[in-house]
């Protein structure tokens, strides 16, 4: 409990630093899955740790202890969690859960909107062309999803580049990349520290679609040129130049496509998996520790009660408490044996 409950918090702090490294240099598809798993584990680890810390503090409130029949004194002596830490944890937990709820509602609403929009777009075809000179291209998730491309975008690309664009957007739809995005956004809502996961994840999804498109048209340089040309055309037709800090995602994609294909090395993934396992194991360990703690506090309370009852037995032969202690003893013995 002393250490293990903090491990998920530390892993959560380390992940956002490691994630972009993984994203830049690995094969994008496994990297995306790894980032999604990392997000899920970081989110559960963070919430779980906070819940345990908050619970141990909460359990020391005399009224709560009385309700649960455990000894406050026993908890206090054994439990290293400070009340102030528990209070902060409880607040962070509440904030995280509220923000998660709000983000979940927002995500669901956006996806529903996209799905409805897919149905409203004209023509029964997968591709919808906007009669617009400004270069635009995006995939709209739905069932089935639609690809929306403007006339301006189609005109600035060559024949195979056009095919690469379509293959890229089809990959987003077919591999349900919007669900990956949703996982990262929810994680980010729980703890703003996890934001780098969202950014790295977004980049990895684009790379995934790029590589898939390259496999489809049979050339990585064609995809590189399609991406580059589309981006330059969009920049030329730019609306108010409001941004300068997109992190250079497009040049990085182009560079990655012009370089040799990324290696499918397993070592970083093994390391990542170990980190995630460590996080889960610590959380489980901390949870069982705190259960054990409460058990022993319950036993201490029972023993105290039994003493009191023994002294009072001459007057009132009450047996309920003894039965409770017997049951509890048997219960904990069984658990420790396993």
């Amino acid at each position, binding site marked *: 409990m002393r250490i293990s409950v903090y491990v998920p918090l530390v892993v959560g702090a380390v992940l956002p630093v490691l994630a972009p490294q993984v994203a830049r240099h690995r094969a994008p598809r496994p990297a995306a899955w790894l980032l999604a798993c990392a997000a899920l584990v970081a989110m559960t680890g963070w919430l779980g740790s906070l819940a345990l810390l908050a619970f141990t503090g909460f359990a020391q409130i005399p009224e709560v202890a009385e309700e649960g029949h455990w000894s406050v004194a026993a908890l206090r002596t054994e439990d290293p969690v400070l009340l102030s830490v528990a209070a902060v944890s409880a607040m962070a937990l509440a904030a995280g859960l509220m923000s998660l709820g709000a983000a979940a509602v927002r995500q669901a609403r956006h996806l529903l909107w996209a799905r409805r929009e897919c149905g409203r777009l004209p023509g029964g075809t997968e591709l919808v062309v906007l009669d617009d000179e400004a270069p635009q291209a995006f995939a709209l998730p739905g069932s089935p999803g639609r690809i929306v491309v403007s006339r301006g975008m189609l005109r600035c690309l060559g024949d195979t580049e056009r095919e690469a664009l379509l293959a890229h957007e089809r990959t987003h739809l077919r591999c349900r990349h919007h669900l990956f995005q949703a996982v990262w956004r929810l994680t980010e809502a729980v703890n703003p520290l996890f934001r780098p996961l969202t950014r790295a994840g977004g980049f990895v999804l684009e790379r995934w679609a790029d590589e898939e498109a390259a496999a489809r048209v049979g050339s990585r340089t064609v995809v590189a040129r399609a991406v580059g040309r589309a981006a330059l055309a969009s920049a030329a037709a730019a609306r108010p130049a409001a941004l300068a800090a997109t992190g250079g995602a497009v040049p990085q994609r*182009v560079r990655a496509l012009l370089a040799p294909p990324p290696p499918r090395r397993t070592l970083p993934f093994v390391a990542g998996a170990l980190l995630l396992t460590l996080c889960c194991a610590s959380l489980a360990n901390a949870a069982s520790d705190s259960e054990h703690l409460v058990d022993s506090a319950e036993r201490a309370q029972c023993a105290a009660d039994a003493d009191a009852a023994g002294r009072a037995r001459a007057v009132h032969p009450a047996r309920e408490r003894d039965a409770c202690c017997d049951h509890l003893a048997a219960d904990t013995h069984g658990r420790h044996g396993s």
Partner: protein
Amino acid sequence: MRDDKSEESGRVTGRRARGELEGSVLAALWAAEKPLTARQVLERLPGNLAYTSVLTILSRLHGKGMLVRRPAGRGNAYSPVRDEATETAVRMHSLLERGSDREAVLSRFVSELSREDEQLLQRLLGEQDTGRHDDGQ
């Protein structure tokens, strides 16, 4: 490469393949400056497709009211139905202009460029173009 491709197309289901082909044909017609015959469309599509399947797709798209057909030589030439400033176009345009947070669900092909990005990209593509002049344009 050819093997990979045929394996890939074998994996996709018939309906999806047809949907993709419709998209490719439509995109080729929109990209062209003038109406195209089925033969011209075929030339602009990668891979070795059958002339008849392009014809089928063209007549299906025409049936859906997405293409205009006019006689050209012995066959027909097709061009997309222009619909500038329709409700869809306006809605999409305002969505992208306004930069609402709904944008989060869209997977955009390219993100915006900063000025440095633009120069870097020019250079990357420039190096590329001096290297080879084959497929694409």
